[in-house]
């Protein structure tokens, strides 16, 4: 059953994240702290002309948070803010069970399995909520 949650895709992004670093020239950033578990996450983005040119994250957290953050940034890099907003909303719908499939999220759809572990859904959502706040509030 553990393998339902810890799919190879998720583990691969946890073991070797490609976006885990600070981001030079970031003009948006958001910090989240989960007081229940002590996890910390910072998401960086560089937004130019209504487009997310680049993103990165730093985390002291579980595998679900880190894989979710890493895959989110791969998906959103280069997209317009309008697209990014739509994809964030789509991911939230997927995780809260409002939809069962979301092909536009690509391999990120694998996070649907996290719904079998309700206490971990917040881990999957954390990077997306953090980015959402960063984009609104700078």
């Amino acid at each position, binding site marked *: 059953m553990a393998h339902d949650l810890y799919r190879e895709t998720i583990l691969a992004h946890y073991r070797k994240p490609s976006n885990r670093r600070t981001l030079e020239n970031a003009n948006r950033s958001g910090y989240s702290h989960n007081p*229940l*578990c002590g*996890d910390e996450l910072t998401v960086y983005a560089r937004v130019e002309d209504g487009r997310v040119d680049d993103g990165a994250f730093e985390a002291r957290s579980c595998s679900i948070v880190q894989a979710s953050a890493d895959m989110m940034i791969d998906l959103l890099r280069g997209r317009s803010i309008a697209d990014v907003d739509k994809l964030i909303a789509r991911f939230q719908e997927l995780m809260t069970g409002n939809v069962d499939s979301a092909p536009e999220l690509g391999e990120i759809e694998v996070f649907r399995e996290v719904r079998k572990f309700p206490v971990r859904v917040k881990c999957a959502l954390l990077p997306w909520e953090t980015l959402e706040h960063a984009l609104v509030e700078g």
Partner: protein
Amino acid sequence: MKTQPFPIEQIRQDFPILRQSVHGRPLVYLDSAATSQKPRAVIDTLVRYYEEENANIHRGIHTLSELATADYEAARRKIAAFIHAPDPRNVIFVKGTTEAINLVATSYGRAFVGDGDEILISAMEHHSNIVPWQLLCEQVGAKLRVIPITDDGELVIEEYQRLLNPRTKMVALVHVSNVLGTVNPVKQMIEMAHAEGIPVLLDGAQAVPHVRVDVQDLDCDFYAFSGHKLFGPTGTGILFGKEKWLDSMPPYQGGGDMISTVTFEKTTYNALPYKFEAGTPNIAGNIGLGAAIDYVEGVGLEAAGAYEHDLLVCATEALQAIPGLRIIGNAKEKTGVISFVLDGIHAHDVGTILDTHGVAIRAGHHCAMPLMARYGLAATARASFAFYNTRDEIAVLVKAIDEAKEVFS
């Protein structure tokens, strides 16, 4: 290692929840430091109370109220005897350890702590023995000072001696650490504080279920603990206080039951312990706590302690043998609490994988963030034992940890 036969099969029968399955596997409950499971005797007491004698206490002249009051006060006497309090008047019913400490910080603090004074705590405190004192310090301009710990998780007694000074108005100390399992040398530390005329509060939440506590032998000024970790109902707890302090402290909360007479000009307060028990209390819960103490005394705290020590030794050896696993907290004196970290696997991921094996542990900062910071950690996994656990369950734990390692390998 003790080899006394311990009636483990009978004891497990006494706890209905232990028959549960989780994710299709038998429940292995290793989270008793968070809350213990409840024996049938406690559950039955709650049901019987609500079915046969539910009434408010200390006020009715009818039969049910008399019955409820008698059982409630009988529970107080049991608890007083259990911790060797000199008198039931010293035993105040509260919601739990947290409320007990808040009561002392607020009420003692209001009477005895002022600008420039110091409160001394330790680096291994639970947030419930940090934050109430911080709130007090902010209000009155006092300073919070902290006894450091060693890498093994023991208090540095020389530093403690150095920190005690004429400005110290309270030493508030955990008896047994909820993260490290360390049993602190509290008797010696109380003597040292008393030599300087300083009172001591002990947070006994993790101690009372596992070691015999004698508040008169310890000579502590206050002793706080929770009923729900002592096999009793949630929302129950006890503050023991020496009469000389309780008499000189103002009430914590105002309301019914805590008064003697009330006029709009002046209120006189009720005698101890009622002065600190405003409002209708958790009557059923506290009577249930009395039943829990009967149960624990029936099992025998000493026999249970020896059995738990055997589990601790067995589990420590088994976990230490796992490559990449590091135990946090290696004090010489420990209860059945083992915090650990696994290389490359976050504690939450460990917790989730163990849960799929039916194994319930705690993962996180354990309400002790400053202690986590002391070890440079965000979180640990923690297995904690009670006398209803078995060596077979430790084997399941080890197997589940092996699978966690395999998933993340």
